[in-house]
């Protein structure tokens, strides 16, 4: 599969009567977007706000972050099976409004989490301090269940991002990249001397607030399977995961999966990127056994020389990660795993909930229990009412001077286990 991705640089977002992209500025028509959000009967009202890099703004509680993209040419459309028809995406041409993001905010449950600071020390820990964010704050109708509310926000966020993405459809990109993912045999013929490498992407799939959708399928109902990495760039994987802000993969992370990006950058040079495998992280232990067996079977069948395995979330996914790693190593395939750590505030506790000697090549995205004090910022989008309750916040964490002391696990993307950021630990 071959996908051409055209990047249109966005350096600001402004509200206007006419939606368009002009001179690197994304003009949004919030009235039209509001109408899209209110198509869902579960949403009572919606507020729009813009947060720009460097501004004294704190966004919380963040649910998802989504990048506006548009399908320019080729089959299917962005977010297939979710907000557009099911059809295989990942080939043709896609345009990206790079530097812009839709950030959805809403208190789905009381302990909902996720902080994005646009400036100060907190900004160093989240990649979304560097994007121009259209923040959408949702209020649900009364009496709605958490399931309905989560689904409503998730869908509305995707639709709004889709609408914005379309504005880049007819523009000339500032930069274009080509991602060529050949079929198995083609790849072998083309690069006979390069080691064949795969990527096992683990997706959170435990239940309410912990789900991931692939072409609209709830991933917990799937066995380990395969697709082209270019499909993921077209929104084949969507986040329904609201918990553990630091190490959940937002939809934006999926769209810009850094492992895929970095494997492509070596593709045809030092390695042959030959397989994209996705697996789940279920609650049921038998599912964990089955899914990791399947990952190993696929890797073995494809005769890969090495794979990178990335994790999502805290706690029991450590078990999935170690199972995947161990079983894949046992097929004779080299593995490198990416995870994060919960080593306690002082860094002296055991970092992972599971471990195995075979996991001898590990990349860490840092200790999520590290404490930071975030300064008071001029403006809060969303609400600070729940700051105490977010993961990593603790009783009394909201100080009288407006600063908050939290563990970095409260910050969206701080210890992302796709290796999206530079934070690490030793």
């Amino acid at each position, binding site marked *: 599969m071959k996908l051409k991705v055209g990047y249109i640089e966005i350096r600001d977002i402004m509200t206007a009567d006419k939606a368009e992209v002009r001179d690197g500025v994304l003009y949004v028509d919030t009235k039209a977007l509001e109408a899209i959000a209110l198509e869902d009967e579960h949403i009572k009202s919606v507020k729009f706000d813009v947060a720009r890099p460097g501004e004294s703004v704190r966004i919380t509680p963040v649910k998802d972050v989504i990048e506006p993209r548009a399908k320019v040419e080729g089959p299917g459309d962005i977010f297939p099976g979710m907000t557009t028809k099911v059809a295989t995406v990942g080939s043709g041409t896609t345009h990206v409004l790079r530097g812009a993001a839709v950030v959805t905010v809403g208190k789905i449950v009381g302990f909902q989490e996720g902080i994005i600071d646009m400036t100060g020390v907190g900004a*160093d820990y989240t990649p979304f301090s560097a994007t121009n964010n259209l923040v959408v704050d949702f209020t649900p109708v009364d009496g709605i269940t958490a399931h309905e509310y989560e689904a409503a926000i998730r869908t509305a966020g995707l639709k709004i991002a889709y609408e914005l993405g379309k504005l880049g459809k007819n523009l000339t990109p500032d930069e274009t990249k080509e991602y060529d993912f050949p079929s198995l045999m083609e790849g072998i013929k083309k690069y006979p001397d390069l*080691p064949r*490498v795969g990527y096992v992407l683990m997706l959170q799939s435990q239940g309410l607030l912990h789900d991931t959708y692939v072409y609209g399928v709830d991933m917990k109902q799937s066995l380990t399977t395969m697709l082209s990495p270019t499909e993921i760039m077209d929104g084949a994987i969507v986040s329904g995961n609201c918990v553990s802000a630091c190490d959940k993969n937002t939809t934006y992370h999926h769209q810009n999966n*850094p*492992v895929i*990006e*970095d*494997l492509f*950058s*070596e593709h045809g040079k*030092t*390695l042959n990127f030959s397989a994209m495998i996705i697996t789940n992280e279920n609650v049921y232990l038998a599912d964990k056994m089955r899914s990791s067996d399947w990952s190993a079977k696929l890797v073995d069948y494809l005769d890969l*020389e*090495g*794979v*990178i395995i*990335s994790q999502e979330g805290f706690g029991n996914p450590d078990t999935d990660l170690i199972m995947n790693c161990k079983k894949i190593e046992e097929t004779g395939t*080299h*593995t*490198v795993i*990416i*995870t994060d*750590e919960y*080593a306690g505030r*002082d*860094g*002296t506790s*055991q*970092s*992972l909930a599971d*471990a*195995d*000697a075979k*996991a*001898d*090549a*590990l*990349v*860490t*995205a*840092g*200790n999520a229990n*590290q404490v930071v004090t975030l300064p008071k910022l001029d403006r809060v989008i969303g609400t600070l009412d729940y700051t105490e309750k977010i993961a990593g916040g603790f009783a009394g964490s909201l100080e009288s001077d407006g600063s908050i002391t939290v563990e*970095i696990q409260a910050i969206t993307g701080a210890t*992302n*286990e*796709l*290796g*999206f*950021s*530079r*934070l*690490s*630990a*030793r």
Partner: protein
Amino acid sequence: MGKFKVVHYINQFYAGIGGEEFADHKPEMRDGVVGPGMAFAGAFGDKAEITKTIVCGDSFFNENLAEAKKTLLDMVRAEKPDVFVAGPAFNAGRYGVACGTICDAVREELGIPVLTGMYEENPGAEMFKDKLLIVATKNNAAGMRDAVPKMAALALKLAAGEQIGASIEEGYLPGGTRVNFFEKERGSRRAVDMLLKKMAGKPFVTEYPMPDFDRVEPNAAVVDISSATIALVTSGGIVPKTNPDRIESSSASKYGEYDISGVEDLTPESFETAHGGYDPVYANADADRVLPVDVLRDMVKEGIIGKLHDKFYTTVGNGTATKSSKQFAAEFAQKLKDDNVQAVILTST
């Protein structure tokens, strides 16, 4: 701001007194720099000054631990430095242990920040890297030129009370504490690079070494337990009253082998625990609670097991090094095999 005050600790060799034959040299404190202190002074520039250098023989330190520690602590206390620096000891074992021990004491008892330097395989590194900052050095004094700038920079940070970065940034040996920092490359890029190295059989360094669980595969089940000889082994410290072999209450250096032929029940008059890591009241009142001789005698009578072995093996698990435990077990496991014991019940506390 004035200069930070540094006290430097070195052994008799680096003080120019002499080698092994002078290792009994008693602690002394001199003004200013001695030996490697010169290099440190250069690296500190005008930011810090070594006001005193303490010299002590390696043998003296290790063989007169309590006295040496007290003398040295008094010297450091009197000088009130902003930071205490020991070594570097490179791969000199006793020097390394001395540096680690005195640094640990100065930090614990005087609350003064401390720093030392060693080669990663120095026994002192193994003992102290989880508790102290130990700058990684080469394995001999030729590494002085590398070690001093790293140690001096870190010493200045400690003196100023600055945040210490991760081991890989600062150059100290990774210990039990995980510290966050920002890498140059993002995680995914590092993963790709690590995989390329791993596939090519080139050396690579994992960012988190897995804890060593040392899991042991269980043996096959005993076929007929009703005719088997079963032995009892414990790390709960059960010993005959008065602890005849003086097994230590923690960090045990030995194990005991005791005869229980004819003993039906462990009584408070005849058995007790040597273990210092738990409340001994209940074990001393009835040692069967840790080493269940009484229950096993019953099981023999009921025909559930064949025989209780005449001897039991015991040590104290409290802080005892894994290496020692392995060595103890290897010895008595052979004895148990020679005595045709089919199964062992291991009890802990």
